[in-house]
């Protein structure tokens, strides 16, 4: 059983490396910027989020840029610890937020896949399995043993996509992404994505693309300025947004 439970979840981003004093003068008009008790300028990224996601739900996070969608995903993934509130994520988490993170441009495709296996904490045998699987799916041929610095954009996407989707987590967290492969690859990608999403108990995806919401999601959470302004069945929320 997988579940995500958030109650009163808050997250403030401090501005550390900017001149706090001048910044305050310039920016402290907006409601989301304020100073915290230790007199730092902070921006409220998430404010008082309450929601519960259970097994079988496919949730879309929708809202304008800066609404806090990716920040919420990163918090769910365990990158940021909330400053107020409680968060529980049950089930093994797989986060596809920035698929290129941790890739070494000077290493070959094969070396990068092994490295990713190590990042995920896989034992040797499973690392080798991962290499085989990614090699078969990405279809890079000889380029698999060439430094990825030399890859074309499309080849990079293939490798990243194959690598990212070579897992079967219970809780799948996805940020919006762009597929730029060729047509034959897109068909293969679609099928693989469907299998990944179908195999997960919970999907949370941050997206601007409403066709993605309609196609994949059962529920939508609409965010703006770090707060949830609507939460319900995907169709209803989309209708509420006028699409």
């Amino acid at each position, binding site marked *: 059983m997988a579940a995500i439970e958030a109650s009163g979840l*808050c997250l403030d*981003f*401090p501005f*550390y*490396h900017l001149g706090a004093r001048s910044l305050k003068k310039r920016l402290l008009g907006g409601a989301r910027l304020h100073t915290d008790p230790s007199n730092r300028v902070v921006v409220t990224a998430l404010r008082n989020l309450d929601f519960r996601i259970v097994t079988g739900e496919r949730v879309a996070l929708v809202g304008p840029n800066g609404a806090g969608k990716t920040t919420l995903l*990163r918090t769910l*993934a*365990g*990158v*940021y*610890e*909330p*400053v*107020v*509130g*409680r*968060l*529980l*994520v*049950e*089930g*093994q*988490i797989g*986060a596809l*937020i*920035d698929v290129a*993170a*941790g890739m*070494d441009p*000077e*290493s070959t495709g094969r070396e990068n896949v*092994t*490295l990713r296996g*190590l*990042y*995920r*904490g*896989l034992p040797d045998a*499973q690392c080798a*399995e*991962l290499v085989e*699987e990614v090699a078969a799916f990405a279809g890079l041929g000889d380029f698999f043993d060439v430094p990825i610095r030399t890859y074309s954009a499309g080849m990079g996407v293939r490798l990243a996509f194959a690598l990212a989707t*070579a*897992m*079967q*987590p*219970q809780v799948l967290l996805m940020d919006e992404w762009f597929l730029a492969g060729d047509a034959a690859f897109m068909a293969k990608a679609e099928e693989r994505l469907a*299998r990944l999403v179908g*195999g997960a108990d919970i999907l949370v995806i941050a997206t601007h693309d409403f066709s993605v919401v309609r196609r994949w999601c059962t529920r939508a959470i609409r965010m703006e300025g770090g707060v949830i302004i609507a939460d319900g069945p995907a169709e209803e929320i989309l209708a509420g947004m006028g699409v």
Partner: protein
Amino acid sequence: MLDRTAATSPAYIVDAADPQHLRRAIADVTLGFSRWRLASALAWLDLRNRYRGSVLGPFWLTLSTAAMLLGLGLLYAALFRMSLAEYLPHLAVSLVIWNAIAQMVNEATTSLTSSEGIIRQMPLPYTVHALRCVMRNGLVAAHNLPLIGVVFLACGHLPGPEALLAIPGFILIAINAFAAALLLGMICARFRDIGPIVASVMQLAFFLTPILWKPRLLGHWEVLMPLNPFYAVLETVRGPLVEGGGPLIAWVAAITYTVLLVAIAGAFFVRFRGRVAFWV
């Protein structure tokens, strides 16, 4: 398709009202050390990428240390009116170990900020980044260590069985390196001015620590030497290799400084670990 991997714990719970700093910090360190293979793979990559395309690669460091040893050795042996055979073994051990310590401290200041891209994208124990920094510097130092053997052979200096005491000395250095990578890595992520300060402190420390000169040149001030943490730690390796075993006071001081550094780094890590992702 790979099976469900048991890499992460099945339930991730954070409650700001009950942050459990200590438990999380301990989990970070134990999980981080269990991922030592990742840290070592990254350390090798760093080294390979740093010297990509270079013919000699990291052996340039060996070469430049060798040149420095020869130049400084000839000059300072003359200045201090010592024979080369007497002075060079001291200089070789001091310089090689000092280079390792100095580089380690300087890179410790960026141990976390240099991994910013990973820290903000995937949940990984911060220990892994500190370990990567320690391992990378260990690998670099390993390229210089053979110089000590070469100098010993050339000068006919043969340390006795007490040379084995250098092994606990190296272990002390490694423990300090890890603690420094965590502590300086965190402090320098939060306060970006600390890095340059550390660099200039290390430069000053090079002259205040008996590397070019021998402690006994200080005369009756020599008793104050253990107050310098770099001397104490350096002596735990140099003593066994050059002096036939270091003074007891140096060992006591070195262990005390190590305990202090580990305690400070530990306390800082326990308290502020959760903030690192916001700092980098």
